[in-house]
């Protein structure tokens, strides 16, 4: 990759901008195309570039001058963790390693501290104040871990009103039933409530907070990759 293109890709990723690098495989001729921009060097079809950006999947397209490899670099999927609790302390580094961009949300400043979550993006606000700003989309998962309806419910409501690819909530079957009751009372129907994974995580018999984090992360990845 050309050094300047490489640097632009890294800068774009750090700034959260989506780009495509197009490389002609015969001679290595290369250009970087930003979302919405036109291919000026290799004369590529705009639809092919747009499709690569939409799916995030690379593809090779044929041109008059031979095959061109399109490598999109799109923003990583996000995971919003509600509750700066023990499970979250394990889930944040695991999810980060797995390539998710993690935000921890907890209004309790004693929980959401940099000491407990070194390097993590922490938001110490009530979910109903910030979930709109976080704009969950179809590349966003939301998992509620506080056990406290005052904190979990507003986050789950915002998630249910979004296209979030994953919604999960900690709690026993009894807790889940009570939650369904509350959210059902707010007008969410059965299909909507079915979107909430709870009890949370794949059933692997997880016991410790760390094991539960593994179960949750596996379920999130399953939702991302398998739908």
């Amino acid at each position, binding site marked *: *990759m*050309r*050094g*300047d293109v*490489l*640097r632009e*890709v*890294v800068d774009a*990723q*750090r*700034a*959260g901008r989506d780009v495509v690098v197009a*490389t002609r*495989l015969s*001679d*290595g001729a290369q250009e970087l195309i930003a979302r919405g921009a036109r291919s000026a060097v290799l004369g590529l079809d705009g639809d092919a570039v747009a499709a690569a950006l939409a799916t995030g*999947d*690379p*593809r*090779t397209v044929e041109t008059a001058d031979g095959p061109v*490899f399109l*490598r*999109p*670099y799109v*923003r*990583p999927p996000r995971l919003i963790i509600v509750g700066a609790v023990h499970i979250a302390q394990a889930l944040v580094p695991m999810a*980060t390693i797995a390539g998710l*961009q993690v*935000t921890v949300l907890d209004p309790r400043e004693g929980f959401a501290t940099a000491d407990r979550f070194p390097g993590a*993006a922490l*938001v110490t*606000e009530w979910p109903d*104040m*910030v979930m709109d*700003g*976080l*704009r969950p989309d179809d590349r966003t998962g939301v998992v509620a871990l506080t056990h406290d309806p005052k904190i979990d419910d507003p986050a789950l409501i915002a998630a249910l009103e979004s296209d979030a690819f994953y919604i999960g909530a900690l709690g026993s079957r009894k807790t889940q039933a009570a939650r369904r009751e509350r959210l059902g009372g707010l007008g969410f129907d059965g299909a909507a409530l079915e979107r909430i994974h709870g009890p949370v995580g794949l059933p692997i018999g997880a016991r410790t907070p760390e094991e539960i984090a593994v179960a949750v992360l596996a379920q999130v990845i399953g939702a991302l990759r398998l739908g």
Partner: protein
Amino acid sequence: MDQPNSRHTNADPVLAQAVEWVDEGRRVALATVTRTWGSAPRRAGSHMAIAANGDFAGSVSGGCIEGAVIQTALEVIESGEPRTLEFGVTNEMAWEVGLACGGRVHLFVEPVVGAPAVETPVQQAR
């Protein structure tokens, strides 16, 4: 209030490593999986960065072909010319450096051409 959407996200660690090496004045090649068939372990788009001394980051398979890719990358660094590679059970070298899992991959190996961010043209004569 925080603006969580505007905060920085992470760059691909392999590409970030490549930039770091370039900034240190080291010569670097980048290998990219361009196409896969069957049960190839790494998806198209996967990167491996290779420095001229053989240091590498990332992967393009489950570890089966990295050695051969590094060898090619060192040649690419020397020649400055990109190369395409193909590995798989159909490759005559399958038993030596093929994919044990039976998948098939195409790779593009290219030199990272360009000066470090600091404006010191390090066209080293080594």
